């Protein structure tokens, strides 16, 4: 069992948890992910490592409540335990040799973008962070990003925080203003990563995206996380989750990610009803 050491609500739909998992904490690196199960009947869900503390032996996860499992997870409190927590899985993000990087985060994807920005900052690279949210209520990790970024641009769909517009608008401006990046790292919704990649392709800037497809085991066994990269089939769990954004077939990935959408929606509603009943 894996104990929840700390729980923090970042915004109405996003929660941060610090989990006691010393072996995973010892090995985890930015870009890697874990798989957890909330209870003995639960499904396995992958979540990217948001932070880790090797000395305390904890791993931080940040998740958005989208389905039944994240709903259940969000109902757990500090001191309670997760049934399973396995990792670190996947290949760590490559940050070696990068001197100037634009880190683009969208929504809860910022949780994954942050540890990479932090690592780049720690190794002395110049970090320009562009983070986008629907509105000001959903902004997360602002202070954290400020601490590790040489420049931070916040974008919201309605302009309620930072500037109004999309992350691609801000990134385009930065590039047009003469900023020269070794690499752009984009993590967020598939559509955002698709358009960031399309933008940077025009400028010939190498772009890395972090894919978070449907998966079960996370060790290469099920093949459910497969995606097409440069015409080849890759498994996000072992070959990724980071891939060259200019080579990823985003349209296929978007289709595949919708496979269980109706099931998820229904399962979440049922779970919510269950919790509501308990409260009554």
């Amino acid at each position: 069992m894996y104990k929840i050491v700390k729980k923090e609500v970042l915004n109405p739909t996003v929660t941060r948890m610090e989990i006691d998992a010393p072996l995973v904490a010892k090995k985890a690196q930015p870009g890697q992910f874990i798989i957890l199960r909330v209870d003995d009947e639960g499904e396995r869900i992958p979540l990217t490592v948001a932070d880790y503390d090797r000395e305390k032996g904890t791993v931080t996860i940040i998740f958005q409540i989208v389905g039944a499992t994240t709903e259940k997870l969000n109902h757990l409190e500090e001191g309670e335990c997760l049934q399973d927590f396995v990792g670190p899985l996947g290949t760590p993000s490559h940050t070696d040799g990068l001197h100037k990087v634009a880190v683009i985060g969208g929504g809860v994807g910022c949780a994954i973008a942050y540890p990479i920005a932090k690592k780049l900052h720690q190794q002395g690279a110049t970090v320009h962070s562009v983070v986008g949210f629907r509105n000001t209520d959903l902004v997360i990790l602002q202070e954290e990003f400020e601490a590790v970024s040489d420049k931070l641009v916040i974008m919201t769909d309605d302009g309620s925080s930072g500037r109004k517009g999309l992350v691609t608008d801000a990134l385009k401006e930065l590039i047009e203003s003469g900023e020269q990046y070794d690499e752009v790292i984009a993590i967020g919704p598939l559509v955002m990563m698709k358009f960031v990649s399309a933008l940077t392709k025009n400028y010939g800037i190498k772009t890395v995206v972090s894919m978070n497809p449907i998966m079960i085991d996370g060790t290469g066994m099920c093949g459910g996380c497969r995606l097409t990269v440069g015409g080849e089939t890759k498994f996000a769990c072992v070959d990724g989750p980071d891939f060259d954004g200019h080579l990823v077939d985003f349209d296929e990935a978007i289709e595949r990610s919708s496979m269980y959408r109706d099931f998820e929606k229904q399962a979440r509603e049922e779970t919510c009803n269950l919790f509501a009943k308990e409260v009554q």
Partner: protein
Amino acid sequence: MPNMSLKKNEMPSQAPDVRNKNFLEVALGYTEEQAVDEANRCLHCKNAPCVGGCPVAIDIPAFIDKVKERDFEGAYQVIARQSSLPAVCGRVCPQETQCEGKCVRGIKGEPVAIGRLERFVADWHNSHSTEAPQRPAPNGHKVAVIGSGPSGLTCAGDLVKKGYDVTVFEALHLAGGVLVYGIPEFRLPKAIVQKEIDGLKALGCKVETNMVIGKVLSIDELFEQGFESVFIGSGAGLPRFMRIPGENLKGVYSANEFLTRVNLMKAYKEGADTPIERAKKVAVVGGGNVAMDAARCAKRLGAEEVYIVYRRSEVELPARREEVEHAKEEGIIFKLLCNPVQILPDENKLVGGIECVEMELGEPDESGRRRPVAKEGSEFVLDVDCVIMAIGTSPNPLIKSTTAGLETQKWGGIIADEETGRTSREGVYAGGDAVTGAATVILAMGAGKKAATAIDQYIQGKNS
């Protein structure tokens, strides 16, 4: 006087049109009377060819003799000398090509139903034996076993019985490997697998789940932690695909994914958290046991039509005979000499059909089987909404890529000595599908057994 009936005692089973709608075990097992009657068909040949057909060399005539005497616990003890998983093997071994394939009674008539008798004996023991297992005296040596499938469990079992301090590391949340994620409940109830694992634990074997060796710990770190030897039984985990157009459409599964959702994650149960597509028409590509399992699961999930699409003919089907028969009885439609060309999308980018081409058999290929050749212009479309690829697996590279000096074949299999499982790394042994590529439960068990003997000799030799 032996029972000279030419036919085996039939296995009591759920009726096909009942069982293809539930996940309960298909075969119900012999009664004591049936078992004794079947045991009486054994002629006790002096040279016992059946034993030579068993990868773990169970003393088959001896255990059958005990069944004749109605000493069922005695029969179990005979089997247990060689096999640590008899309740599993009695259910999933391909007996027709092993023990029963060598049985003299099979020359004229059907062989003795050795597999069914083994299953009977193991089940009898599991439901009658109350004796707590005796913990062996510890010998103070630590061994790590990677993977809790058939080879790992066998290796761990043999070593624990010799007094070793054994820890089994499993990547998933539940131990059992392919026995829990792959083979369906209706063919191998998970309670049986759990019982075997609990038995190992009762002997003192530790089982650590959620441990992906190669990620959370490397083999070198296991040695640093004081393990004197490591057995790798990590299986052949990576699913193969055909690389044909449409394979990434929604509704195309690898058999691994489909079976893992159904078996390990219990997606077949109402209210399970893990989703599975409940398709109406399903094509399963492949002809092995895994293909049969996937097809029969799909049927049980409510599919109206389930096809097996296989490029060779019926005689080449690699699945156990019994699985093929069961599948047919349950209404699975066999499209033999037929190979997929592409998977077609519907308007929602879901699977809308599978285009196949008819095949004919040409000259034998390197496997000795006649090579299937496409018949030009014979393409046709099967109307399906789900495709399951069951065309094999290859070894998982996670351990290889994190273990310096561990030599592997070009295709990824770990290179290990056939008799001992010894690899290119001192103290590291390997067996099962991680070495051979996808094979059977019993072959993996045989490899785990040989490795246990070799590991014992290695550690004793090092410390003498």
